[in-house]
């Protein structure tokens, strides 16, 4: 049996910013390979695993797509300053307030360690304070001489935050990239569960690329798989002091099952019913618009895919100390597996009966 914490440590300490997911993809591939029947990498780098259903000769199996994005937010180098300082832009929306003081790895011709620096508080004027922190006023300092920098690093080199995985009490953990590597761990938990859960449907487990820059990987993955049903796994805001109750979900109280126009009611309701049936803790999350997750890309693919969304509550989103409960990840994995067990042709057909 696999240890979620061990897997999370490994994949959150491996870098893979949007568009440059190769490193983390190979770790994820290693972990899933023994559990799946088929695997492939598509044109944009999505990792696609298949757990085949128990075939019934009469009709082709229903296809279920579960996906979670493996990319993390990061940076790209935009300019090498003459003195060797590096200017950068964001890949996805980092919480800028948390940037100064971070350690980073710059992927030049070789990985180079560096830090993000800015103006010290003593030298900040009233005007600076009013303006607030902006990425354009920060820089990366690698300590390399300007000649060395030019040799190793170029415009367009990818940059990832360097941060160790930190297990905390009550089976929780903090680190970077838990958005959405926690979702990838949910998929792995699901794959494990499916070893002992009989299912008719073919289950596609996909670690998508480029979610943070506009849910791009899921667009082409969905087209390529052409699923009958899709469920995205992503993170939602966890609770913290001062949060409005309706804006957050509680940690360690189970995954949130999302409802809203991005979600097919038949999928949302079935997820809730499965959670109840197996006495899995769960919460409701309402999302009144397009969700901004892979679920959005899936829903409007091809002729339209009945789509669901399961969220793992996570605190401090888009910082390097994102915090999740391992229990929620395990529960979410089970929820998906038990959900997959009930999917067959007739379920798919019923979804179109209003």
């Amino acid at each position, binding site marked *: 049996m696999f240890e979620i914490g061990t897997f999370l440590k490994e994949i959150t300490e491996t870098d893979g910013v949007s568009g*440059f997911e190769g490193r983390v993809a190979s770790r994820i591939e290693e972990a899933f390979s023994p559990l799946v029947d088929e695997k492939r990498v598509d044109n*944009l780098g999505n990792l696609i695993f298949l757990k085949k259903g128990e075939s019934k000769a009469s009709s082709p199996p229903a296809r279920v797509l579960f996906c979670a994005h493996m990319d993390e937010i990061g940076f*790209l180098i*935009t*300019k090498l300053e003459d003195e060797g300082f590096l200017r950068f832009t964001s890949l996805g929306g980092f919480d800028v307030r948390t940037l100064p003081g971070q350690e980073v790895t710059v992927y030049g011709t070789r990985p180079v360690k560096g830090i993000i620096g800015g103006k010290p508080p003593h030298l900040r004027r009233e005007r600076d304070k009013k303006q607030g922190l902006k990425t*354009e006023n920060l820089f990366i300092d690698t300590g390399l001489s300007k000649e060395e920098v030019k040799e190793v690093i170029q*415009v*367009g080199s990818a940059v990832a935050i360097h941060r160790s995985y930190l297990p905390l009490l009550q089976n929780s953990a903090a680190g970077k990239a838990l958005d959405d590597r926690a979702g990838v761990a949910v998929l792995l938990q699901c794959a494990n569960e499916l070893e002992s859960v009989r299912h008719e449907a073919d289950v596609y487990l996909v670690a998508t690329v480029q979610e943070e820059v506009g849910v791009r990987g899921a667009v082409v993955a969905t*087209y*390529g798989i052409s699923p009958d049903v899709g469920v995205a796994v992503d993170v939602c805001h966890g609770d913290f002091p001062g949060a409005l109750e309706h804006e957050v979900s509680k940690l360690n109280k189970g995954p949130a099952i999302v409802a809203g126009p991005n979600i097919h009611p038949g999928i949302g309701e079935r997820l809730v019913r499965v959670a109840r049936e197996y006495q899995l803790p769960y919460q409701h999350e309402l999302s009144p618009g397009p969700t901004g997750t892979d679920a959005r890309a899936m829903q409007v693919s091809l002729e339209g895919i009945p789509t669901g969304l399961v969220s793992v509550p996570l605190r401090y989103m888009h910082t390097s100390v994102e915090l999740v409960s391992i229990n929620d990840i395990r529960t979410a994995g089970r929820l998906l597996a038990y959900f997959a067990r009930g999917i067959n042709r007739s379920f798919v057909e019923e979804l179109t009966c209003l």
Partner: protein
Amino acid sequence: MKELLTRLCGAFGPAGAEGPVRDMIKEETAPYSDEQAVDNLGNLVITRSGSGDKTILVAAHMDEIGLMVTYIDENGFLRFTNVGGVFTKLLTGKRVVFQNGAVGVIGQEKLKDSGELDLSKLYIDIGAASRDEARKKVNIGDMAVFYSPLGMSGENRVTAKALDNRTGCAVLVEALKKMPSEPAHRIHFVFTVQEEVGLRGARPASYHLKPDYGLGVDVTRVGDTPEPEYKLDVSLGKGPAVKIKDTSIICHPRVTSLMIQTAENNKIPYQLEVLERGGTDAGAIHLSREGIPSGVLSIPCRYIHTPAEMVDLEDLDNAVLFLLRLLEEKWE
């Protein structure tokens, strides 16, 4: 190149009404095309069959930004909306031209303070004294573009409206003329419509043509002017740029490294571009079907989306050479 660019920039072609540009390109390229087709949305597809088994889609958009008439008042003044990204603050006093040749000037109402300026405070004056007189020339829904023909600036630089992206069109046309009779791959040169309003033409073109690889050719911003808005390490005259990222695409590493390798091997000057704001056709192309690995060859351009955009002709010549060499590469 300058002569072709002069004609292309002079042509009328706001998003959705690219006809005159398309006709010009069709005629110019007819002797060099194995096949010419116009698709349902108006994209012009010029195909050259090649020896290899790969298909490469090369896209440059024909459309330019413009203005569209929304209302004609009783005194003959035209109210308008934008077609694509125009800078409201730069409009007052500019001349615009409609497809039938009617020329107008953009006027501005009195403002309490300058922060108040938006499109509703501006109007187009085509010299008509009444609504009826105006209607004889212009109707609601008609589009206008900047009236700003190409002119030389210095030895090698030109300014004009619509260099975004007639520059890219000119590069494709010139490349087509110089291509070997049997290219290494099947090449679709696609002159797209409606890029400026959301990469709309490239989407169905890519869906239909099912290429193995996509390549956009478009202009990009520069960081070489006084106090530029973005810290962008791209300059005019230092060669075409290999795009790494903009807001529509993170270019496929396999394509960008092939591009860099090609430039290095052929000693073509090039720059690397990370554009913080802006997108291009490759953004739509790479997300079609199961994903198309795509890249972008960018032409540095100053003052984009103004009536006086500026490019360096040497960059264009290098871009043509770059494109020709690139299309002869292996693309595995």
